[in-house]
Structure formats: structure tokens, C-alpha cells
């Protein structure tokens, strides 16, 4: 771990001023720390090497509030555990609660925050171990995962520069729930739809999202649930808990008069970013739910899959994941975690 300066702030303006003071520094020199579950881990591995760490835990960003439009606003510092067990979120956005509870462990969820989870970095081994080249860690150095152990890595949205998976479960649920991310920078506030928040790797895999240097995530908001909709999160992985997804699906779905009248589908574990399956949604909308329609929806998104040497099985696994998640959503069921 590189030696660093640690600063604690109590007000948002202070945090922004401090980060702005280092605006000229190279990317990664200044980091905000909230729960630290990703940052500290990666600092110990010499993957994150900030010279300044700004502790934002004292900022008043830890509230969950309803919004006038019937939605909800979740402060960036709300702990994943608190978010998962919040009665309002559990009842209105079950996919979010289920996704959070399917991730990490209770101890990690008690530390990890909403804002931090949005910025959770990939578990790609080659990113996490400095003996390897990695375009995400050292731009232009090359991708060791291509041709390496890539079983866990992406089949959607990869480039010849990076095939790392976004590891977050929360992000998948937020994507299906059409969340908005609220940001504060020295130039003021702005809001970004979650579908536009994440960057695919392309030729710049080190740039993972739209955050500008020194900008702070302040909240995530969710629109009011679509009328009559159900939502759920299904996660498939090697063991029953404490493991990243091989394939996961968040579904928000309304069925009326034998037709699917509203559907949002997002996939995890298969994409370089939380993967919104617009084509699958289009294949489902207005149709009567049936195994055939679900299969077609899965094909609509998986036709773009480009597997690596070890992760071809994810195509079939994602197919079953999507189909089962849709079947369960239509049947009004959900997945119990931790059982």
C-alpha cells in the first residue's frame, strides 16, 4: 500500500473543495472513501494507489426518502444492509432488496454504501493482481484476461481491450428499476440515468463511468413503481451465497389481460456493465407470456454474446436465467435468499 494523506470532511462543499484542490493530479490520486469495501481492498493490493483519501462518511447523505412523484431517493451513504432491509424498498422495489441481499456478506453489506456499490470495481483477477498487464489498471498495457482464466468474465459488451465484468448485483436491479444517479461537482448538480452512467470498455476501459474528476455521487433515485408491476432478482452462481454472479437477471414486469404490458430486464454477471436488455424487452412487450416468448426474448439479447475461451457456458446459463426469472415474475414469485 502506498502512503497516503487521510482527510475527514463534515460538509459536502468541503469534500468538493478538497478534491478540487487536487484536480490537476492524475486520475486515481484522489479518492473519496465511504464503506471502503472496494477501495481499501484494492489499496492493499496496490491496485488503487491514491495519495489523498477523503473520508465522506460524516456527510449527511444517509437518508432514504420518498419523492413527490411517488418514487424514492436513496442517499449515497445509505449502507447496503440498511437499504436491503428498508420496509419501503422491500415492498415496492423487491428486486433491489433481493439483489443487495444476494451480494457479499452481512458484514460487507453493513459497510458498503449505495454510492460505493455503483463504483464497485471488477473482480477480474488480472485487474486485481499487479503482476499482470491490464488496460483498466494501466491503460495501454494489454489485457491478460483474454486468453487467460476468463470463466467469470463478460460475454456482452467486451472489447479487445477489456472483458471485465461489472460485479455489482445492486447495479443490475437499479438498471431494471430505471434509477437516476445524482451527482455534485464544483459546477453544480446533475443527474444521469443509470443506463448512461456506466461506460463500456471500448478503447478506454479505465474510464468506467461518467463521473468527472472530483465529482461526488450524492444519491440514487427510483421512479414510482409501474402500476401492477412485480420485480425480482435471480442470481445464479457457483455456491449458495457469498459469491459473484455467473449470470443474474433483474425483472420488472406487469402482466394484464394475458399480455405483458410493461417489462424491464437487466442482466448481471455477463456484461462489462450492468446490462439493460432493451431488445428482450421489445420482444416481450405486448405478448402473451409463454416459454417460447421468453426463449425468444433471451435470444434477442444473447445473440450478441461473444464468449471467451472459458465462459461459453454463460450463454446457456444466461438463457436459463432470463427464462426462469421471467417465468417466476409472471407466476408472481420471487427468490428467497440466504435459504
Amino acid at each position: 500500500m502506498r502512503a497516503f494523506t487521510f482527510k475527514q470532511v463534515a460538509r459536502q462543499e468541503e469534500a468538493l473543495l478538497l478534491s478540487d484542490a487536487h484536480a490537476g493530479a492524475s486520475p486515481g490520486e484522489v479518492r473519496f472513501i465511504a464503506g471502503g469495501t472496494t477501495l481499501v481492498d484494492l489499496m492493499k493490493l496496490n491496485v488503487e494507489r491514491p495519495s489523498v483519501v477523503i473520508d465522506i462518511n460524516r456527510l449527511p447523505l444517509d437518508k432514504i426518502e420518498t419523492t413527490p412523484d411517488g418514487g424514492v431517493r436513496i442517499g449515497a451513504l445509505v449502507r447496503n444492509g440498511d437499504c436491503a432491509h428498508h420496509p419501503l424498498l422491500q415492498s415496492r422495489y423487491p428486486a433491489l432488496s433481493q439483489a443487495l441481499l444476494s451480494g457479499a456478506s452481512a458484514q460487507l453489506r453493513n459497510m458498503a454504501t449505495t454510492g460505493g456499490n455503483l463504483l464497485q470495481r471488477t473482480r477480474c483477477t488480472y485487474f486485481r493482481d499487479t503482476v499482470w498487464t491490464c488496460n483498466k489498471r494501466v491503460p495501454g498495457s494489454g489485457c491478460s484476461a483474454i486468453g487467460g482464466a476468463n470463466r467469470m468474465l463478460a460475454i456482452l459488451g467486451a472489447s479487445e481491450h477489456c472483458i471485465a465484468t461489472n460485479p455489482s448485483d445492486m447495479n443490475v436491479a437499479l438498471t431494471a428499476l430505471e434509477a437516476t444517479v445524482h451527482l455534485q461537482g464544483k459546477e453544480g448538480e446533475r443527474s444521469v440515468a443509470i443506463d448512461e452512467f456506466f461506460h463500456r470498455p471500448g478503447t478506454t476501459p479505465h474510464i468506467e463511468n461518467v463521473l468527472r474528476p472530483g465529482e461526488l455521487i450524492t444519491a440514487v433515485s427510483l421512479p414510482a413503481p409501474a402500476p401492477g408491476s412485480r420485480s425480482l432478482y435471480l442470481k445464479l452462481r457457483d455456491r449458495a451465497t457469498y459469491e459473484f454472479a455467473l449470470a443474474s437477471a433483474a425483472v420488472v414486469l406487469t402482466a394484464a389481460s394475458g399480455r405483458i404490458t410493461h417489462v424491464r430486464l437487466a442482466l448481471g454477471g455477463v456484461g462489462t456493465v450492468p446490462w439493460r436488455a432493451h431488445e428482450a424487452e421489445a420482444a416481450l412487450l405486448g405478448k402473451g407470456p409463454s416459454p417460447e416468448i421468453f426463449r425468444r426474448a433471451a435470444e434477442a439479447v444473447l445473440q450478441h454474446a461473444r464468449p471467451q475461451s472459458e465462459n461459453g457456458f454463460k450463454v446457456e446459463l444466461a438463457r436459463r436465467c432470463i427464462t426462469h426469472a421471467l417465468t417466476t415474475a409472471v407466476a408472481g414469485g420471487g427468490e428467497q435468499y440466504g435459504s
Partner: protein
Amino acid sequence: MAVDTGNNTLIGKPQSRIDGPVKVSGQARYTSDYSFSGMLYAVPVGATIARGKLLSLDTKAAEAMPGVRAVFHGGNIGKLYRASFLMADLVLLDEKRPPLADNDINYFGQYIAVAVAETFEQATAAADAVEARYAAERPVMNFDLLRGTELKQSDHRGDAVKALAGSPVKVDEVYSTPVQTHNAIELHATVAVWEGGNCTLYDTVQGVGNHQLVMTQRLGIEREQMRVITRYLGSGFGGKISAWGHCCLAAAAARNLDRPVKLVLSRRQAFESAGHRPATQQRVQLGASAEVKLVSLQHDYVNTTAMVEDFTEYCAEASPFLYSTANMSSSSALARRTIGAATSMRGPGAVPGSFALESAMDELAYQLRVDPVALRHRNEPALDESMGIPFSSRHLTEALNAGAERFGWSQRTPEVGSMKRDGLTLGWGVAVAAWGAGRFASSATVDLRADGTARVSCGTQDIGTGTYTVLAQLVGERLGIAMDRVEVAIGDSNLPAGPLSGGSLVTSSLVPAISRALDEASQRLVTAASLLPDSRWSKARPEDLEVVKGRLGLKANPSGPALSFSEVLQQTGVRSLTGTGLSDGTILEKPKLSKHCFSAQFAEVTWQPEIARLRVSRVVTVIDSGRIINPKAGRNQIVGAVVMGVGMALFEGTEYDPRKGVALNSNLADYVMTTHADTPDIDVIFLDCPDFEVNELGAKGIGEIGMAGVAGAIANAAYHATGIRVRELPIRIEALLKRNQTGRELKKEPWQTHPTTKTKPQPHRANDSPDAPS
């Protein structure tokens, strides 16, 4: 004196651990809990190539960093010697090359230096700052071990090849198991303290005596100058038997700097340079008659070993005697790979060996259309056919029957996918296993004290399995005192030499040593009777007196008056008297009887093809391992073994990238192990049939046998549920996705037309970024 095996109050009864309260209250001091004034921290530097030469080392920047006291390497650490490694000395050491011995690099992470500083953080930073230059060579990393390897025959009888050729029913398959890492939760640690020329090592070891001997030899000092202390161990599973390189680095650094040094390995370093179960590839060939009798059994295997160390994983150890067959052979070889030294891991040989043999037996049962339990019954041997000698005790038939009954095996329908419950497909599988029984040489002393307490001391250690408690039971039982009146002193090489915690041999080794120590103490109590003021005792001839349950009485009048040992000692003004017991080992003896323990494992899996989810839901494990001294700790140990067996079957495997020879999943998140949520309902049955050929209580070991057979039973259950025979552990989702949800073979996906293999990645032409929907 005869040992009373009936009317026990402590032995054979479930006892809570006597060390439980100090453990759960945080008072138990584990190795890394020891700290001393002036103590420094050491952090090893590992090679970042897997094969080649270390050309130069630049330590200047590291040495100049704050708090750094030294950076030691081959040129300045001082002489570290090779240890002798004769089995006759019982010196167990799997990495024989001393650390920093030369500039040859044979595995990734091999120590090239060690940084020592005032704090752990400073030492870590300094270790990171050491710069090395290498001449790297290509690592040797493929795991297709049988291919091109010449095997050497180790066992044979009859003509297995000819008999196989003439068999109407045959199985000939290859089974593979990966490198597994022990991952005891307590990391390896050494705290080294020198005073004058004397060294005390607080260390994480499974044998304080073995460690004392090895470290004495390594450091070039005399035995009385070395003391090793392991009061508590956060598990070992075999991974803490050997004195690994870091122990030498800590001891040498402390000697050179004349300050105490603490060294705790990182989890990653434990994967790289502190042992693992080697990968195996095993070919099993079975031939059977239409009458369901085995006529030929061949078990041939290769296991990985380090480039400069030999370690054999004896996969076919049980194959010569597990089943009756006139024709049998086995052969083996080592495959040198650029990975660290392999070592024993729970059930070495037996665990991967049983997976292969018992999978093949299941395949044979399906071919013969016979129930897998019935197949094993039909081939139960009357004696150990490999040596032509009887078994000291073997109750495998009873074990299978007891397990089948508890499991409900008679309800099994053999067709694949034919059993359902709550919308889940069930699979039921069975496997059996064997493990050797015997003793290490051991000594122990027991002190009887005037205050009515006793102290037992032995240079053995409790690796988390309940040795403290077993000793209190053995002594408390014979002396007729409660366990909390027995002080147990172990975990210190200064104590009378005791057994290594390995091979499931501690309890069986301790029983005779403790018994003899108590015999001698009783005899001394009889002798002390002449000093008693009461003439009834002082005038009695010693041969007329006896000590029963710690009370001195007249042989002729067993229900008559008697004095407790405490009364005898108080009345004679003696504070304590000591008995010493010695017992011999069985490891090197030529057996007249075949001594083993056995297990029968029954597993149930649930299968949801719609989401490719396989889980283990139920395990019934039947243990035939003599008399169980403490059924509570015993059950605990078997439950843990089953949990580990589930991990082996479904999750575990250390993965390497062949390009650099690096372990890729060297942390507890990426090395997937069984969590509580994956843990099935586990039902443990102890047959509790004593084997008095092993010791006077009939106790054998249970550390290994509980794990052996579990993976095979699960793999067999997985086949029953899915119709997919997975012969390469762990059983992962990709193997189970080979069929569609209705059980038919899947069509090849377009991208599967140019398959790449796992062991030999091909140069990759990067994919273009797909046009994704938006």
C-alpha cells in the same frame, strides 16, 4: 493393570471441549497473538516468476524506508541447512530445500528475500519495494498428467490386464482432482524469540516435536536450544505439519537482529509457499463378471509435485484391499510442475483416490444394472487380500447397512432423474473409503496431586479437534475425578515427546502412553502406602493393594475401605507423584493384521435443470473407526470433514494461469469453499466397534476418514440426478450444462466450433466489441 472399558463415566460420553470457554471468550492465545517488547515484523518477498534464475536483487530503496531494520536475502541471512528427512526420525518435511538456498526459482512466490521493520505496515511496504531481476523460463503447468508419463507399478496380484480383457463388463475411465489449498482460517505464523543461543518459536504447527527437530537442524543449533510452542491452532488439515520456509526466515531474522520477530503469512502466500494437496489424474479400470463379482481392478495415477521436491499422493492406497478381486494392480508416477511443494491435506491419497475408485464402482453398478450398495456387498473381502492377512476389525458391511437404513436407500429408483421432491430432481449416491489405523510412538507423564487434581503433560498439540479434552477424559476416567480436576499441558516441545497431529493418529497413540503413565503413578501410590500412618495400609504388602478409579484399596476387598490418591498424598506429606508412560509406534512394523478404519457415505443432491442449480441437501456418514472417546468432538470433526468433502465435490480448486504459473484465486473470496448456506443436513453415525489391536480402548482415528468418500458419493448422486458423469472435480455448472433441461445433449453453440482447452490456452484473437442493443 487392566483397563476398565465398561462403566465409564467420561469416555465414550459426549463431552464439551475443556478449552471451549477460553476460545469463545478470546482468552486462548494463538500464535500471532504473542507479542514481545522490541518485537519486529517480517514480511517475505516472493518471486514473481515461476521458473528461472534470480539474477539480482536491489534492496537499497527498501532498506532506506522508514522503520526498516533489514532486508535479508540469500547473501546475508546466514546459513540455513537442509534437514535430514528419514522416516525413522519421524521428521516430516515436504519442502526440503531451505529458503534462499540458491538463485533457482521453481515456483511463483518462492521466497527471495524478507523485509524486517518496526511495524507490519512498514515491513509490507519495504517488501513491495524490493526489486528483483530474473532470467525467466517457461513454467511447466499442464494438468493432463497421465499423458506421456511413465508409471511404476507398486501393487499387483494375479493378472489384472488379462482378467480385464476377459471380463464381460468393463469400466475404463480417467478421473481428475485439482490442486486444493488447506485454507485453515488461522494463517501460518511464526514468532521467534532468541535469548542467548536459545530460540523459542511460537508457531502454527501440528507437531511441536517434529518442528523442534526440523528447526534445530535448519538453524544449526542443538535440540535443547530450541523450544516450540503451539498452545492453540486454528486448524491445520495437514498444512501445518511441515516447517515451511517462512519459519526459517523469521527465526534467522530474529537471530541476526537479536530482537523478537513476528511473521504472519498472507493468504496469498499460504497458497503459494505453504503446501497444498497436489492435483491428481487417475485411471481406473474395473472388470466384472455377470455375477457382479470384480475380476480385475487397476488403479493408476499421477500427481503433481514441485520441480525439486517429491511428494506422492497415494491415491491407490486402499485399492488393494477395499474389495475382493483376484486380479489387481496399481502404478503411479510424479509429474513435476512449477508450483510450490505439495503436502498432506486431510485424507491424503484416500480422499482423491476414493473419488476415482468409487466413481468407477458407480459406473460399474449402472453397467451391471445392480444397486451400488449391493455391488459393494457382493465384493466385500474376507481378509486383506493385498497382504493375505486378516483385518483387525472391518465393519464396512454394517456401515453400508446402517447408512442405507438411515438414509432410506431402499426407496431409491436407479433411473437417472427419476426421483423428485417439491419440484426438485433428487440424486442419491454412495461411496466408501478406508484409512490406515495405528500409532505414533508417544510418551506422557501424569502427576497426581495432594489437592485431588491431576496434571497430564505431553508434547502433542490440539489442532482444534479436541485433544485437550480427550486427555482430560482419559486421565479423569482412570482417576475417578471430574475433567475440570485434570490440568492438561500440551503444545510445548519441552514436554515429554508426544505424537504429531497427522494421519488421524493422536488419540490412538495417546491411549497407551497415558494408560502406562497412570499404571506407573498407581504403582507409586501403592509404594507410598507404606508411609501412611494407618497400619492397615502401611503394613499391607504392595501386591495386596491396588488403585481403582484413583482410590487405593485392598485387592481382596474391592468394596471395602479405600483412600483417594489425594488422601494418600496428604497423609504422607507428598505434594505430587509422577508416572511416565511410553508406547511404541506402529508405522514401521510389519503388520500381522491389517488395521484400518472405514466409512460409508450417502449423499443426496437436488437438481434444478431450469437454472442449472445443483446443491447437496443431505449426507449420512457412517464411521467405522473403533471406539469413539468423545462423540461430541468426534461428531464435530466428521461434520467438518463432510463440509470439506462438499467443497471438494462442488467448489474447490486452486487455479493457475499457465503463462506465469500464478495461483489466480489465492484468496477466500475467489477460492470457493462451502459456506453455511451450502452445508447439507449431516447425519453422523459412529458404529463404535472397538479395535483392541490398535490400543487397549479400541480407539482409532477419525480426522481423515470422515472426508474420504464424500466427493465420490456426491458425484455419484449428481449422475443419478442429472445423467451427467463428471469425472473432473469440482463439479461446476459448465459440466452440468451439457444437457438441456429435458436431459438431451445440447447442440453446439456457434462459438463452440473452435473449442479451446482449459489446460492449454491458445493464442487469442480478441473479439470485436459486439453491437449491443441500446
